[in-house]
């Protein structure tokens, strides 16, 4: 070991502690970090891209009016939104779900396809079980007022 520099040990300890605290904050850890190996390991363990949750997405296009459909994500997600995209038209006729936000509300058209309103629980709901999100129109039958998944419409969904 070469002994060729004089250092202020208190200042050095303080500086190393500052660096260690920055590494712990970025890496989301409270572990004690020994210099230098601990520093090196902790920095290597910091996720690339800043970490955080990933977003999954997909589409669903039914060929017939569908009362209920489930979407399963690869990983467990807390948030889910689905909305009607390509192919949607107010002139479709028959009620349809056009927007669903898990944990908040669903919005749909009426059976004339001309009015947009919040879907009450009896008319339809977006639920979650494990990794699966399900939107189901309300009622016991597929009637003209069931806010269903509309045929020919490409629904886009995101989960995070």
């Amino acid at each position, binding site marked *: 070991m070469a002994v060729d520099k004089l250092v202020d040990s208190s200042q050095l300890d303080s500086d190393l502690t500052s660096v260690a605290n920055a590494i712990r904050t970025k890496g989301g850890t409270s572990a004690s970090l020994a210099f230098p190996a601990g520093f090196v390991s902790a920095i290597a363990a910091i996720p690339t891209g800043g970490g955080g949750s990933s977003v999954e997405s997909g589409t669903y296009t*039914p*060929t017939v009016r569908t009362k209920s459909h489930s979407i399963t994500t690869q990983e467990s997600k807390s948030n889910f939104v689905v909305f009607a995209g390509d*192919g949607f038209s107010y002139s479709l006729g028959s009620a349809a779900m056009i927007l669903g936000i898990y944990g908040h509300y669903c919005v749909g058209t009426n059976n004339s396809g001309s009015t947009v309103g919040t879907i009450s629980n009896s008319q339809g709901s977006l639920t979650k079980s494990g990794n699966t999100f399900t939107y189901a129109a309300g009622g016991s039958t597929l009637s003209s007022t069931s806010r269903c998944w509309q045929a020919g419409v490409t629904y886009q969904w995101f989960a995070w």
Partner: protein
Amino acid sequence: MRYYKQISNGYILAIGTGLGFNEITEAEYEDIKIAIASKPPRTETTDYRLREDLTWESYEVEPEPEPDLDDAEAWEIIFGGGGE
């Protein structure tokens, strides 16, 4: 991206992207999408379902039952001047 089709009893119920159902190629997905866009219009007594060969087959639909009204809709119809 993973493409899929949902099949039941020889009919294509849906297509999509993501997990589940029968995986298909992008080309097959686009072919089915074109077929979906050409679905004949539904009437009060007739609807159409998509065969796996991408042709539409007509079938009789059940008369739709009385609409399921929730309390708010019923209230609107009775007191709100006509509802929907």
